Structure formats: structure tokens, C-alpha cells
């Protein structure tokens, strides 16, 4: 590697750090750009522009949360809300008590079921794609579910009642939770990011329009 390339890459690393880009992504960018410079033999500034400007463009596209985590968090939220809605609804409809209650153990169960369904679906999809998803999901599973369940068991708080409603109110809560769950699912499966901004809404609108056949230009 030439001195000019080293100098350029060193400046790029500093500029990327200043833009708050994660270390792993900096390594990715630098290794890829170094390889491109080796392949092309081009002058780094002529090919990529000033390091500061390049870092700004790369950082602009950088999300602080990785794509898989956004997707995973969204699906987990979806499934947890839906599972909680189903559990509260079942308790209201078929429970022996006059009032439906939400316990800490019940919440852990809903999160656990959500995790299980999301993980299995993710593993299935990635298996079909020929990739392993385990590295992406292991930490949320270990920390949130296993850790939380152990903690709840240790302190004996599984039966701790967090909320209690009359059956009719519990049914309303269940419907609301299911509605939120379905809404999150719609967001997770759409091409937009969460939380949405104006650009996402525009893409969503164009997505709806794309359901119609394109209008041919008028003939003169």
C-alpha cells in the first residue's frame, strides 16, 4: 500500500470516529476501501474525495442499531404484544376469577413465547436462505428470557400482580394489544424503518400506488 493510501485511510478512520460510526463498521469500510484502492491503483482523493466528506457520506447511511436488531426488536415487540393480548383475552373469557389480572410470570411467559416464535421463524427463514441466524439472536434470548425468568424465580415474584381489570376492561386491553401487535407487524414487514419519518411515509405511499398498473404516458 502506498503512503498516500495509508495517509488517506488514517484520516478516514479519525473522521469516521468523529461521526460516531461503530468500530466494526469502521473496520469494514477501511478494509473495503483499501482493497478498492489496491485493485484500481487510483489516487485515493481523486477516487473517494476528501476523507472527511467520505466519512460524512458513510456515516449518513449508518444506523446506530443494526438492521437485524431493528427487525428482531420489531418482531419481538409484535409477538410479545400479540401473546399478551391473547393471554389477557383468554383469561377474561375463560378464567375462573371475576377479574382478569396480569402477573409478572405472565409477562415473562408472553415475552418468552414471543422470543420463541420470532427465533424459530428467523431460524427457519435463514435456514431457507442458507445462513445461520443464531449469532444474531443468542444474546437477546439469553439476557431477556433466560436471565429474566431466573430472576423472577429467585425472587419468587412470578405471581406478583401487576394489573387487574374487570373482564370487559380486560377484553378491551386484549383487543388493543392485538391491534398494536398487528400494527407493528405491518411496520416490520413493510420496507420502511421504525420509527418512521417523512421519507418512509412517502415510500409507504408509493408502495400502495405500486399495487396499481403504471399509467402509460399519453400519446400525442
Amino acid at each position: 500500500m502506498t503512503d498516500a493510501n495509508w495517509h488517506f485511510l488514517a484520516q478516514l478512520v479519525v473522521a469516521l470516529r468523529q461521526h460516531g460510526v461503530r468500530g466494526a463498521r469502521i473496520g469494514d469500510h477501511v478494509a473495503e476501501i483499501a482493497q478498492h484502492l489496491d485493485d484500481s491503483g487510483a489516487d485515493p482523493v481523486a477516487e473517494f474525495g476528501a476523507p472527511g466528506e467520505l466519512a460524512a457520506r458513510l456515516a449518513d447511511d449508518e444506523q446506530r442499531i443494526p438492521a437485524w436488531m431493528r427487525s428482531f426488536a420489531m418482531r419481538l415487540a409484535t409477538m410479545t404484544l400479540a401473546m399478551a393480548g391473547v393471554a389477557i383475552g383468554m383469561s377474561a373469557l375463560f378464567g375462573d376469577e371475576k377479574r382478569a389480572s396480569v402477573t409478572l410470570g405472565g409477562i415473562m411467559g408472553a415475552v418468552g413465547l414471543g422470543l420463541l416464535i420470532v427465533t424459530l421463524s428467523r431460524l427457519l427463514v435463514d435456514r431457507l436462505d442458507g445462513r445461520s441466524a443464531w449469532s444474531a439472536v443468542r444474546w437477546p434470548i439469553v439476557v431477556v428470557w433466560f436471565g429474566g425468568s431466573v430472576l423472577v424465580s429467585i425472587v419468587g415474584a412470578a405471581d406478583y400482580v401487576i394489573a387487574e381489570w374487570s373482564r370487559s376492561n380486560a377484553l378491551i386491553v386484549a383487543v388493543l394489544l392485538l391491534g398494536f401487535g398487528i400494527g407493528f407487524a405491518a411496520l416490520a414487514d413493510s420496507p420502511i424503518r421504525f420509527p418512521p419519518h417523512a421519507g418512509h411515509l412517502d415510500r409507504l405511499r408509493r408502495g400502495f400506488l405500486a399495487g396499481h398498473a403504471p399509467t402509460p404516458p399519453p400519446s400525442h
Partner: protein
Amino acid sequence: MARHRDKRSQWLKGILDLCVLGILVDGEAYGYEIAGRLAVDGIGEIKGGTLYPALAKLEEDGHVVATWRTGDGGPNRKYYNITQTGADYLALESVGWQTLSDAAAQLMGLREQVERH
């Protein structure tokens, strides 16, 4: 000539991601390889300073996935593969681009010229 290049780079800004996805539909490729394909296929020379931020955005949006691998006896390279989300995005947006370019060609009188020839 410089003005022509400016105009061309303005057009490309809107469709570079689609062109890259179109290349990846044929199979995985690394950055320099993609730049070469863009040049050979008539899109023109795309500088690394334009291409890599576009690739980073495609990756962040989940339209491509990247893996580092060693080529046949060569150096480590970051290979990009199109995802199903990327393929869906390409299918959706390419229809929009086709509609727009047809309308623009019509307005510029290009269609009549082509039909006359």
C-alpha cells in the same frame, strides 16, 4: 462535456442503488467488481466515493447482505448478495423508473424519433 457529466451524475444519484441491485441479481459481487460492471454496462465510471456509500445504504436497508471471503487465491473481499427485500424493492422501484423514463422520453420527442428509424 463537463456539464454533460454533471447532468449524468445527477440522473445516476436516483437510480444507482437500482443499477447495483440489478447487477447483484446475476450473482454476488464485490465493490470494485460492481464498479467495473457499471462501466462495462454503459452506466459510466462510478467513483468509489459514490459507490460505497450507496452500498452501505443498501446494506443498512437490508436490501443486500455482505460477507467477507477470500477469493481464489486472492485477497479478502467483501461480497454483496441481494436479499429478498432487495429483490422486492428492485421490482417495485424499477417499474416506477420505467414509467418515469417513458414519460420523459415521450416529452422529449424521443419515442417518435425511435419509431421513425
